[in-house]
């Protein structure tokens, strides 16, 4: 992972941690949906944070939930082509 990529993912990880003060780390392979770190109420903001960090505009009606399930999946879907 390049340092630019690493800092972008870190930005997303920091946002997740800010929403869950009881946590100290989020693993790249942690299922964010299954573990309820992201739920329907926080999902909208999650997409905004990814857009801001990646520069990619997400089409809200063509969302594949698997692209958001883990940090690895987010990295692959929104950062890999940069």
């Amino acid at each position, binding site marked *: 992972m390049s340092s630019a990529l690493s800092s972008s993912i870190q930005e997303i990880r920091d946002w997740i941690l800010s*929403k869950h*003060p009881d946590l100290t780390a989020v693993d790249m392979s942690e299922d964010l*949906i299954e573990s*309820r770190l*992201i*739920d*329907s*109420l*926080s*999902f*909208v*903001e*999650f*997409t*905004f*944070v990814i*857009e*801001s960090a990646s520069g990619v505009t*997400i*089409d*809200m*009606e063509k*969302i594949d*939930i698997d692209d*958001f399930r883990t940090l690895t999946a987010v990295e692959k879907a929104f950062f890999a082509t940069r």
Partner: protein
Amino acid sequence: MTNNVIEVKDRFRNILDRLSSKSIEDYYNPYRIFEWPDTLPEDMWWMSTDLTSTHGTELAEELDQRQLYKLSRYESINFYSLNVHGIRELLIEVIKRIHTSGFEQSSEFFHHFIGEENEHMWFFAEFCLRYGGKIYKQPQGGNTSIPTSNAESLLVFARVLIFEELVDYYNSKMAVDGGLHDTIRKVNRIHHQDESRHIAFGRELVRMLFEDVRRTASEADLRQIENYLKRYMTHSFESLFNPHVYRDAGIADPLRMRTRLLSAPTRAAFEQRVFRKPMSYLVKIGIFDDRSLDLR
């Protein structure tokens, strides 16, 4: 059946009869009631100034009058877009329940509710498409986060009530704001008139559903319900701070703008003002212990 339950059901029946009669008396043709001008002037507010997301903040001072007008235009399109999405979600839930067990009393009024909400969705969508050229999209994702299965209907209708009260706060102010265009005032006035019936119905239904849940729920279940609904309030409030709106209004760093506004010193008071009525009601009937929305 205890006397109390019979009294509550009788009261609910009387309210439903009154609201259904009122729906019939006040019925109007939404497709004829509005005159839609081809365009609305750009050099004016499209939303009451004290309802815009920058109001009272230092960010408002960084924008000139033209930028503030433009921002109010996109914020109003976002507000009506949220209505379109909110109505679609609530219609799905009501249609799932009409004429099913547990909703026998409500079903007659549900017919009026569904009809009126469909019409509201039409005129909000019409406004967005005519004057904004689009409806802001809303992503779907994540778990639905319903904490306890036997509280599902309570959470659904409490969400509907919170959403309607939030919208009504905006509608009732904009309906009488002489600084807004006639078309904007009228859209808000008509919606406010119908919503007063829906809110009256929603309050009674939520109270009945909560009494039912409370009989068997543990203290932990009840706190989970409170936590969920307060998170929903915060989520609904924050949806009015849409970075896509800030981008359309020409703001250089839209997400930073959103973050700054949501952490502005004015935020807590604004949020409490918007939710004053539903907060008081939910505390009064015992769903909420207090008025605090600071859950983090």
